[in-house]
């Protein structure tokens, strides 16, 4: 109980548990100036031909601090202030506008929105001129793109989903300020250097890196419908990674990631050193492990690996805008109300959640990048498809946004994942799940099955031009024999297709685990969180991973040679 109390006390400032407005948008200088220029411009732009019917301004003001250490030395250390503006203009009408997917033209989804660094708002002339420039450019681009859209729509075959291109987001007014947390990078230098020295003399380590990253600040948003927002953001991460390469060119790696609410919550020196030692042991074990063979067998995706699996394999297919893109595979189109995956599983998205078991959720936000209030969504309930992740671009049957329009600065928002969570209606302790795996291996008469302990990431193909498949980079795989013996193997990736593999889930553990990461897709890189229990599959296919063309270096590492002597 005490521990819990302490945690809350520490977490309060950054967690935003209060998450209540504590300022007035009308008194925020950047917002006042943005409103002034936006109102002045929109009055004229809406009368143009074609009209600019919607205009939004986003301004990010904050600080990025980064420290990178390797081999007892600092590779990078900087604290950079951030001051960036972004203008989104929509030309045409909500029915058809410049954001409409251009068919037969691949560049459509990478079309940027105007964005640039801007000077300090304390001097209004420089600040306002930057917005004026951005607005002019964004409006010109929107009109140009709209004419291309009109021509494209006339000449291309009709699409199945004829929904409008945009629905006006509801008017919002919200203001919350958080004091930026002080981060003294120098204080982590010694600790990371000490950790980096643990890799000294280890001939199986080719590269090692340690980092501390802090991104914090405020996002201001104003649009032509009257929405005015100021929201804080803060991400603090300490991480390390080791990699190696076998004589056969196979690359191996281990890593550690600590996402925290406040720099004070970074792991202690003792904890970091202990974790690093464990990772080095695992890397050494992997460096000696045999290469695995492609095989289809009963498999457990453990904790973090299951979270990545849910994200890649099902999460991307629940992003609503894909359903109106004729070039997308639309795996789940027309399946609302139908059983699409194992009835054991429910999948939700809830960006309003701030933490999971004391760890911050990187996918949390209060308002999405289109100014729509974040809200929880049940996407799949007991295997039945219920909903999609929605931005302010309707799809058939889903006319409004549910607060998932997200993007990287400089890109156009698309429906993206936030905090994705898979839960199981029935769970068993993890140890029991392993027993069930062995039983399943025996039942199927397989020589062995797999436990995938860690996935590093992966990709999923959703376009119609390629198979609707996924490939996930397995970082640590154990072969499990019918007698329960385990053996680490290298060089295998998890592959498959979504509907088949998700229907092969037999059981789930009670060990829900968080994987915080960043996901790159059409609208750029966005921070995300994925939570899932360990999952037992009747079978999953593992195939060989891509090898490097290069051998390890001819000479041993200088420090390894010194150790050898």
């Amino acid at each position, binding site marked *: 109980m005490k521990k819990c109390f302490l945690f809350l006390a520490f977490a309060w400032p950054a967690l935003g548990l209060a998450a209540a407005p504590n300022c007035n948008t009308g008194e925020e200088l950047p917002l006042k100036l943005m409103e002034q220029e936006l109102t002045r411009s929109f009055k004229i732009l809406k009368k143009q031909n074609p009209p600019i019917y919607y205009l939004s301004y986003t301004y990010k003001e904050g600080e990025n601090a980064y420290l990178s250490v390797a081999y007892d030395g600092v590779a990078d250390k900087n604290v950079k*202030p951030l001051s960036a503006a972004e203008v989104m203009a929509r030309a045409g009408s909500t029915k058809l506008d410049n954001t409409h997917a251009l068919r037969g033209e691949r560049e459509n989804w990478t079309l940027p929105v105007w964005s640039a660094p801007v000077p300090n708002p304390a001097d209004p002339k420089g600040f306002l001129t930057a917005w004026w420039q951005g607005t002019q450019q964004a409006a010109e681009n929107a009109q140009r793109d709209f004419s291309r859209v009109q021509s494209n729509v006339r000449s291309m075959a009709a699409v199945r989903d004829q929904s409008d291109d945009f629905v006006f987001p509801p008017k919002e007014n919200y203001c919350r300020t958080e004091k930026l947390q002080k981060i003294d990078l120098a204080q982590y230098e010694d600790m990371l250097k000490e950790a980096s020295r643990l890799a000294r003399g280890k001939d199986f380590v080719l590269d090692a890196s340690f980092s501390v990253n802090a991104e914090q600040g405020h996002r201001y948003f104003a649009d032509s419908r009257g929405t005015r927002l100021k929201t804080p953001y803060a991400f603090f991460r300490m991480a390390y990674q080791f990699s190696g390469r076998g004589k056969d060119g196979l690359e191996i790696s281990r890593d550690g990631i600590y996402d925290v609410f406040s720099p004070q919550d970074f792991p202690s020196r003792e904890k970091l050193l202990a974790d690093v030692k464990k990772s080095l042991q695992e890397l050494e074990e992997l460096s000696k492990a045999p290469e695995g063979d492609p095989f289809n067998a009963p498999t457990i995706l453990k904790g973090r690996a299951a979270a990545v699996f849910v994200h890649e394999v099902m999460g991307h297919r629940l992003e609503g805008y894909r359903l109106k893109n004729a070039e997308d595979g639309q795996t789940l189109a027309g399946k609302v109300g139908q059983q699409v995956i194992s009835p054991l599983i429910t999948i939700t998205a809830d960006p309003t959640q701030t933490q999971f078991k004391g760890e911050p959720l990187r996918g949390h936000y209060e308002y999405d990048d289109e100014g729509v209030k974040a809200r929880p969504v049940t996407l799949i309930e007991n295997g039945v498809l219920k909903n999609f992740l929605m931005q302010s671009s309707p799809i058939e049957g889903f006319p409004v946004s549910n607060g998932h329009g997200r993007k990287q600065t400089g890109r156009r928002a698309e429906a993206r994942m936030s905090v994705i969570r898979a839960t199981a209606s029935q769970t068993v302790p993890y140890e029991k799940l392993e027993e069930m795996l062995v039983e399943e291996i025996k039942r199927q008469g397989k020589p062995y099955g797999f436990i995938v302990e860690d996935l590093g990431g992966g990709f999923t193909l959703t376009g119609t031009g390629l198979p609707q498949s996924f490939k996930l980079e397995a970082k640590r795989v154990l072969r499990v024999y019918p007698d329960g013996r385990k053996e680490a193997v290298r060089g295998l990736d998890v592959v498959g297709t979504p509907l088949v593999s998700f229907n092969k889930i037999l059981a789930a553990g009670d060990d829900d685990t968080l994987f915080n990461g960043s996901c790159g897709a059409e609208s750029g890189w966005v921070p995300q969180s994925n939570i899932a229990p360990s999952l037992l599959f009747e079978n999953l296919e593992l195939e060989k991973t891509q090898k490097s063309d290069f051998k390890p270096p001819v000479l041993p590492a*200088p420090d390894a040679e010194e150790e050898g002597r």
Partner: protein
Amino acid sequence: MKKYFFLLLICLACPLGAAQLPDNMYFRAMSDEMRRTQKELRVKGSPRPYFTVYKVTAVTSQTFSAQFGAPYAVSEEPETWLQAAVYMYAGNAKENSSGFVNNMYYFEPAMVSSVPVSYEGLRRVLWQMTDMEYVAAGDSYEKKMAYKRQKNITDDLPDFSKAPKASYVRDITPFVKADGRLYQQLVNELSALGKKWPYLENFGASLRRTQQDIYFLDSEGDFYQYSRPACSLRLSSSLRNKDGYKESLTENIPLECFQTPDAAELRAKTEEFLARLQDMYNAKKAEPYLGPVLLEPKAAGGFFNQLFVRNANNSKPLLSAQAETDGTAGQFKDKLGMRVISHLLDVYDRPQLREYDGRTLPAFMPLDDEGVESQELQLVQSGKLLALPTIRSLVKGQKQSNGHARMSSRTLPRAALTNVFFTPKTSLTQEELEQKLLDRCRELGLEYGYIFPRFAQLKDGKGEINFAWRIYAADGHKEPVYGLRLEGVTTRSLRDVLAAGSDEEVSVFADNATMLSFAVITPSVLVDEIEILPTQRKPDRAPFVALP
């Protein structure tokens, strides 16, 4: 013990009175890894490392920027980073991998741009890059030999010539952090001067102070160490002129590094720049023209840089199985002894010159990137090409390198000029030059001639200039002109220089392909014939909304 033995060997090899290998972390890491490389790096059946270079650069930089008086957010501390580059030739002096590339567009050294700042970190990076370079050099060696057999290339020239040991060491003074408040206030003030010109869509000032500390060691024991400072104020602007054309103009004003800038002088230069913007706003569109053009020093610098310097560089073409010809090789490689430029000019290259006319020269190079002491060259006498920059990979008729191998993150060491001086035999005053231009116009029956303050970026002899002066033959009055499209400007134009001024200036150019910097020092020159056509760009509509 072995480490000390190696250091001793290096020092014994140095010429009498030469500098000692400095005792710092960079050289300790470089020499320790170099020793291992030369002694132990072998793969059975592959050629051995023959010549290896390590170059480490510690960069520190501070920038202050503002637009219309409003500051951009900047870091309080200077940015610092450590880069390391490695290249290697495998084989032997007679036959090695030098000069052969797999790809004619990308031939870079192994490079890491954020090296951990520690002995161990630098050693690890050098170790990995050396290994990569060894693999690449072995591959190039085999392919080069096969290519030479296929093309029946049997010259007797060694692939890599001998060179005397050389070294150059200057103490490294730590970067002096600027008074942030003072510098920020200055750029705020300078950029605020643009507020009074209502047609300016953007006006910014950015002051940058940079110091590169460079450490070089090769496998023959050549080494150098020195700092290269660079400080400048950049003014940038954009506007829509009276006819609706979007135009932009930038000006780099060099600053005395690590001295407090003279605010009054910079204000005056900013006002001059703003006056040019005013002229640009009111300028008339160019019309077709064929006749003499007076190039002011910066324009002459651009003209000579593109037509002379580029063609004097890379005198030995690269070999590659991918392409029969090397498009990067300069055109002058076959023109030694021929007239390549007006007889009025002599041309020199002075790599050992660190400063000129109070300005730091970015191409200063005491030793080149093959460890050879750089030599001053007289490239041209009375228009005739006497010499070209060379490296240790020889061309026919050449006995040794003249120390002009230059390397960057984008290119392996290749022959390149540095600080190039265009010196007229006789020089005229500005008034005399303008008069000569007008006389020539009258002689040709032209109503007017042109004066270019800047030159175009040429591609295949074509390029655009967004601002120039038209000067009328009748009364010498001038009017600003925009939208000049140049046609047919080739090396032929170098021979059309009719006269030169006495207003010599230093201009610095960075080559986009190689990232190498060149200084061109030249006065104004009068070129007899340049063809100008009006731009084919279209004007833009007026902004939807008036400036705030």
